[in-house]
């Protein structure tokens, strides 16, 4: 009798895997690739200014004792327009935001800032996504919390929604 029961094991296993596959097919796919650099120091970089209005950005600018946001964005990126009001709100609350403009032109950067506001103190120009890749960032926009020693503390993928602002403030507070 016990032997008979064993015969059902393969069928039960098959049913389990078929069920698992069917279930996973209904789950939304997580498209985001998290950076593996959280807790690591920033990579060495020194980017030229993205336009004439603000200085460029380097690792040294982000490791002077004050926590900051490092915002990866681009003038050609539509969700970056959506998050502009939130960046402005963060800046109004005293948060310093350093930008890195990905594959961008000075005139486009200037136009974007004129239209959607300028919450940045510095913007580096990353014309070949070099620093973006070194950060483990997989798209625009993305926002990193950098502590005063230049260690990456937190990564926010995608545009910052109004409900994300308190979370980022809290992460900055933690990085103090």
């Amino acid at each position, binding site marked *: 009798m016990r032997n008979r029961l064993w015969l059902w094991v393969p069928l039960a296993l098959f049913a389990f895997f078929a069920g698992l596959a069917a279930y996973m097919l209904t789950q939304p796919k997580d498209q985001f*690739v998290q950076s*593996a650099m959280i807790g690591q120091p920033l990579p060495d970089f020194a980017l030229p200014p993205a336009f004439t209005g603000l200085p460029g950005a380097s690792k040294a600018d982000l490791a002077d004792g004050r926590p900051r946001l490092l915002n990866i964005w681009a003038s050609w*990126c539509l969700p970056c327009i959506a998050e502009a009001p939130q960046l402005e709100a963060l800046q109004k609350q005293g948060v310093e935001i350093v930008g890195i403009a990905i*594959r961008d032109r000075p005139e486009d950067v200037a136009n974007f800032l004129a239209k959607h506001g300028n919450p940045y103190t510095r913007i580096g120009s990353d014309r070949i996504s070099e620093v973006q890749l070194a950060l483990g960032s997989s798209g625009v926009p993305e926002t990193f919390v950098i502590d005063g020693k230049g260690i990456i503390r937190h990564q926010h993928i995608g545009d910052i929604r109004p409900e994300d602002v308190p979370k980022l403030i809290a992460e900055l507070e933690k990085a103090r």
Partner: protein
Amino acid sequence: MIRGLIALVLVLIALPALAQDSMPPAPYAYNQLADPRLEAEASALMHTLRCIKCQSQSIADSDAPMAGDMRHQVRSRILAGESPEQVRRWLIDRYGDYVSYEPEVSATTWPLFAIPVLLILAALAVLLRRLGRRRGAGEGEAA
């Protein structure tokens, strides 16, 4: 009506252009390395690295600007004397195992490598036992 249709078509054509930058590709995005041996190394590596933006393609197969920038990183690092495995490590350190198509034994993937071996061993054990038993039975009959 016709004017509306034309406007719609133009808007649809223009949308993708808005979603991507208009910058020229990075120097080594579409240019091969001069040294054919290094280019072969870089190309073999690029076929086993996942495009982060277009996740079902290798960076060798993708026309996404980010894939071009990743190819530039691979080629310029190989040119600077790094080995393909060093470049792969550099990317894995940033994006995790996910960026590499080359399977690697790690804390989460070891069952994938261990289970087939265990199954083969189990099958061999069952087979040996059965064969042994049958042979034993056969000898018993002959005797």
